């Protein structure tokens, strides 16, 4: 049984205290990083295993905070490297489930306080992704891309002249056309 299996199984080492588990994880993932023991994917797998361990019971606070902090750092680093459309690909339709969810995607890409490191091409790539993977059937159950939410936030944060706002109707086809036209 390897470490991942043991860490994810709450019946193995059930009495390990918060401080001890935290110390191990800190040595494994942070303190001895210079030895290149684990790559990024392996580090993520260790964090996932610890989270799985506490799926059915409250996680001990020190370990929980440590793992969450590492996850946040890793997400931040991955977001910096990923393209805007990749963030949406990874997140799926929930990324447009609400204006707040869309804003979070923009924030992850560094769109904060008027700073807009995105181009029209970045936004267009997302619109293309949404239009090509949109499911009308799922949308009726609110489980597909929501172009209204995306358009509103894009207009607000990236392109105030985004003519999409004229196309807020119930006809999603018209919305796609409107958004695409506004970028060309």
């Amino acid at each position, binding site marked *: *049984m*390897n*470490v*991942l*299996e*043991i*860490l994810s199984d709450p019946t*193995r*080492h059930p009495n*390990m205290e918060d*401080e*001890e*588990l935290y*110390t*191990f994880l800190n*040595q*494994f993932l942070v303190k*001895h990083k210079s*030895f290149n*023991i*684990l790559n990024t*994917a*392996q580090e993520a*797998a*260790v964090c996932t295993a610890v989270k799985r361990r506490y799926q059915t019971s409250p996680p001990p606070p020190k370990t929980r905070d440590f793992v969450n902090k590492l996850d946040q750092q890793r997400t931040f680093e991955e977001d910096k490297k990923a393209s805007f459309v990749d963030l949406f690909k990874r997140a799926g339709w929930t990324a447009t489930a609400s204006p707040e969810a869309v804003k979070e995607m923009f924030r992850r890409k560094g769109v904060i306080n008027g700073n807009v490191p995105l181009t029209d091409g970045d936004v267009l790539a997302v619109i293309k992704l949404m239009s090509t993977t949109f499911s009308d059937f799922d949308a009726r159950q609110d489980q597909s891309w929501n172009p209204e939410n995306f358009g509103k936030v894009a207009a607000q944060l990236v392109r105030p002249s985004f003519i999409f706002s004229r196309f807020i109707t119930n006809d999603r086809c018209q919305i796609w056309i409107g958004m695409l036209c506004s970028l060309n």
Partner: protein
Amino acid sequence: MLLYIFCGKHTDEKTIAQLEEESGPEVFVTKLRRFIEMSATRIFQGRNGPQDPKGLVFRYLTDEIKTVANTPTGTFRFRDALSVDQPAVFKNFDFELFCDQMGLDGLEKSILALSLLDSSKSDLQQKGSLHPHLFSCGLS
């Protein structure tokens, strides 16, 4: 005091534990080192040696190592116990075989291996850096 412990004048566990508590980690480190030395034949050759003909010390050692391997905050004591060159058993110490003989699982092995990364001995550091990679994640 150590003389008392190892000459058998104070053999009950309570007395030893009390002496350890009073004297700090050095006593534990010395005890661990002595236990490893006395059990070396059993660990590395698979048979009881003259210093531990009934394997009693080996059993004590197994218990102690299990405890250390489950307390990452205290593994420096294991590292310190191995960070010597004498007696000969500590030269080119076969860490992998040692862990196997102690019956440690992957997590316990990794906990001990990580402690070796802080060792002043470069060969121990190397063993520590190789071992978590070999048997920890299974993702290599």
